Structures are given as structure tokens and as C-alpha cells.
């Protein structure tokens, strides 16, 4: 079968999906596929893959078929299995951008870094999922608290820490300590702004 794009070389890459209940296929040679950013032997990039397949369909069929993302996911998972058998795909990335530094969840996934403290406020759930996936940790912070900063934030952190200590004291049946911690927690809760 000849490549649908160059009409010259043999097609080795075949993409198939249902469009309006009809089977829609795309057959490409390795060169055209690579030109379009589809390289099964190279590093996998979902964003690039989506863009390139969308571009190809647009070019060849004059329309972006629905369900393209699902198809790309399937292709990607097949490539991922070939590269790393048993590897699971990362969960979908939300399209949010930090208003301060412009960092996105996708950028975090690629570089492992965020740009500013505001990123933690902009996409906290994604960061929690990211951490849970990479370190297996799902709990919140229970360590030291800075001496200065936003009063409400510090108060909230202090309450979280006290609650954790209270739970631990109850678990080890140290009720005397638990009572002291409970009183302390009540005192902070009654402070203005808590």
C-alpha cells in the first residue's frame, strides 16, 4: 500500500478510527510519519502526537474527526507498551496556566519543576496526584511551620499539625496529651481569622 501523503513510498504506519459510524483510515510511510512528528522509535510526546495526528487528518480529510484524543491515547498506549511493557499511562493533564509564571501541569510533568509558589495554588490537585504517583505520599504537611508569613496560612498549618498530633496521641491512648492538644486546638480555632 502506498503512503496517502507522498503517494510514493510504501505505507508502514496505519491509523484507524470510527468517524460518524464509518471506518476512517490513514496510511503513512515512515518518512511522512516522522515529518508529522509520529516516530514510534523516538520519545513519546502526547501533546505533539495529538497535534500531528490532528494536522494530518485536517490535511488529508479536511476535517478533524471527533474522538481523536481517544485514538491518540490508544496509539500512545500501544507505543508505551512497546517501549516499557507494563508501564501505565499518566492521568490526563488539565489545561491550566499559572497566572504568575505561566507554568502548566504539562510543563511540570515534563521538567519535574514548577515556576513559583502560585503554581501550588493554581493546580494543587494535579500536584497532589503527581506527588502521590511519584513518591507514594498522599498526606499533607505535618512538619515545622515558618515563624513569619501570612497569619491565616500559619494558623491553618498549626491547626493541621495539632490535629495530626492529637490523632497520634489518641491512637497510642495517651489521653492526657490528647486533652492538652485538644484544648490548644480549640484555642487556635477561637482566634480571629481561624
Amino acid at each position: 500500500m502506498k503512503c496517502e501523503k507522498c503517494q510514493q513510498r510504501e505505507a508502514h504506519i496505519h491509523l484507524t478510527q470510527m468517524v460518524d459510524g464509518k471506518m476512517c483510515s490513514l496510511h503513512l510511510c515512515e518518512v511522512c510519519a516522522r515529518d508529522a512528528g509520529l516516530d514510534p522509535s523516538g520519545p513519546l510526546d502526547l501533546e505533539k502526537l495529538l497535534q500531528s495526528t490532528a494536522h494530518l487528518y485536517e490535511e488529508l480529510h479536511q476535517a478533524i474527526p471527533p474522538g481523536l484524543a481517544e485514538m491518540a491515547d490508544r496509539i500512545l498506549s500501544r507505543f508505551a507498551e512497546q517501549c516499557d511493557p507494563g508501564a501505565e499511562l499518566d492521568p490526563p493533564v488539565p489545561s491550566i496556566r499559572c497566572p504568575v509564571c505561566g507554568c502548566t501541569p504539562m510543563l511540570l510533568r515534563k521538567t519535574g519543576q514548577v515556576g513559583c509558589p502560585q503554581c501550588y495554588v493554581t493546580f494543587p490537585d494535579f500536584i497532589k496526584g503527581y506527588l502521590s504517583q511519584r513518591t507514594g505520599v498522599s498526606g499533607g504537611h505535618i512538619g515545622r511551620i515558618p515563624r513569619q508569613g501570612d497569619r491565616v496560612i500559619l494558623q491553618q498549618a498549626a491547626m493541621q499539625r495539632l490535629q495530626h498530633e492529637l490523632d497520634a496521641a489518641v491512637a497510642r491512648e495517651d489521653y492526657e496529651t490528647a486533652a492538652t492538644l485538644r484544648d490548644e486546638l480549640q484555642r487556635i480555632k477561637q482566634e480571629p481569622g481561624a
Partner: protein
Amino acid sequence: MNGMTWEPLWVMPPACAKKTADTSVVLATSITLYRNPAAEKFLDAAALEKTAAHLPDYTPFSKMAPQTESTLRCSGLLPPVPPAARLHAGAAMVEADTAVVLGLDDQITIRSVAAGWNCETPWQRVRAAQDALEEHVTYAFSPDFGFLTRCPVHAGIAMHAVTHLFLPGLWLWQQQEALREAATACGFAFAGIDKDGRIPFAVLGNQATLGLSEEEMLRRLSTMVQEIRQQEEQARAYWREHPLRMDDKIATACARLASARLVTEAEAVEHLAWLRWQALETPAAAEAPALENVDRALMAAFKQNGTAFDHAVESDDVKALRAEQLRNILAEKPAKRKTAVKKKKS
């Protein structure tokens, strides 16, 4: 690795110069805190300058004398500085064995190192340095994520405690993988200093920084270190009873270092590691090199090419120089031993 793990910081005990510390199994302990100013972009140049103004001895790497930088790195206080960071980053010694580095992965990196197994001293020092800086800098913090860092896997307590271990007994027993698995199961990272697992030096440090307090993390690390130390001592006792393989390793290392004319850094460290074991096991033997000489030779082996093994291919001149330098250091008689012999004669 997307900054997901701590860098395998390497330090030899002479860098700490604490002769009283027991470095037979645990060479050194280091604690690092990562902090960033609130309401600023991470690694913001203006914020960096403001922070630097509060550190009296702060020197940018672009103006730092190579000798000073080398001393900081050999002391384990300075991680390798990437070329891109050299333009804006810098460091300041705030106390003996404690340094504050600005502008690396995070705006503020505070690190302290102590010889042997000792997490209390570095913990106190980094806390003191952190508190002193906090007089001028408000740290980025959130109740859920703790201290906020550029790499979210460091957020929380934003602290890494690392121990540098010498485990020839367990290495000879080929327990590297078992140790790694045990450490991972307990939330720690364990790795040898070379990719092949031939050199019996390793680093153990905490992986998770969220969900447990600093004190709890240090307590767990302490338990883990004591367990590994015990296992290593048991292994060494076994090899004392069945010394054939131990003797073979040591004799090979001695012969190689005595006769080789070209020695790579990895070879040097590997052979010196087995000589270190000999120096620990048989300190009185005439043929055994003195422990301080072996440690000094190890430092020299590292100094010639920095701290990483993944450097460019070395020239034969460097390898030859290293071979000669190692022979000279190992042939030296230690001052202490000479005095002891003199006293006996008299």
C-alpha cells in the same frame, strides 16, 4: 530524573576533620534544607540579590576562587554547579561545615555535614542558619504542601538527610539489591556511588518529604542506619572467620595500586575501598596502609576529577599522575605509627 531524587553527594571523613567520629561504617551525615522566598518566582534574580545581601560572606561562583569552590565541594557542602547556574548562583559559609548556596535548584539551599553517624549536629546547624535567614526572608509555605520548592517532590519539610556508608562486608556478600529494596520499602533511597555496584561506598537518604515531620524522618533514618550498621558488622565478622574472599579482594587491590601505571578514578576508588577495609580490620599489620593515608588517597582520587564518575574521558597523563600520587600517599608512614615504634624501642 526530573529532579526526583537527591544527588548522590559524596564526602570523605577527612573533609570534616573530626578524628573522634566513628567512620568505620558511616562516613558522614549531611542535612540539606531547601527554601524559597514567598511571593517571588523561583530563582528570581532580584529576590536572589535581596537574599544574598543578608549573607555577609556571600560570593557568586563567577567571582569565587577555584580553591574555595573546591574546598566547599570536597567538604560535601556544595553540589556540582551546572555551567548555566554559575552566572547567577553563589555560596556563603555560615559556620564550620555549614554553607548556604543561593540560586541552584531552589533559591536557598542550606547544607551541613558531620563526620560519622551524627544527624543532630547538622540538624541544629541548618535550623540555626534557616532561622537566621528567616529574620529577613519570608519563606514560601502552604499548609498542605509545607515549604514550597521548585521541584514538588521536595515540598513539605523540604529536607534531605543523607548518610554516606562504607559497606565492604555486605558488598562482598552481594547484598546491594537487598539493601536497596529494604530502603525503598521504608521510604528511603539507597544507591552505590558507581553504576556497576563494584565500589562498596553507598548513600542512603530520605526520599519522601511530605507527610512526616523532620524529627520523625530523622528517627526513621536513624533506625535504618543502625540496622544497616549492625548487618555490616555481622558481615565483617563472618568474613573475619572466612577470610579467603576478603583477602583476595585486598591483595588484588594492593597489587593493582602498587604496580599499575595508569589508574582511572573509578579504579582508584574501588581499590582504595578494599584497602580501607584492610586498614580497619588489621590496623597493626605492617603491610596494611594507615587509615588516614587511605582516606587521604581517596580524597586525592576524587579531587583530580571532581565528585562524579560520569566525566569526560581522561587522558593517560591524568591516569599516570593519579597512579603515582596514590603510590606515594600509600607508601607514606603515618606520624602516629612512627611515634609508637620509637616509644617501644626506648
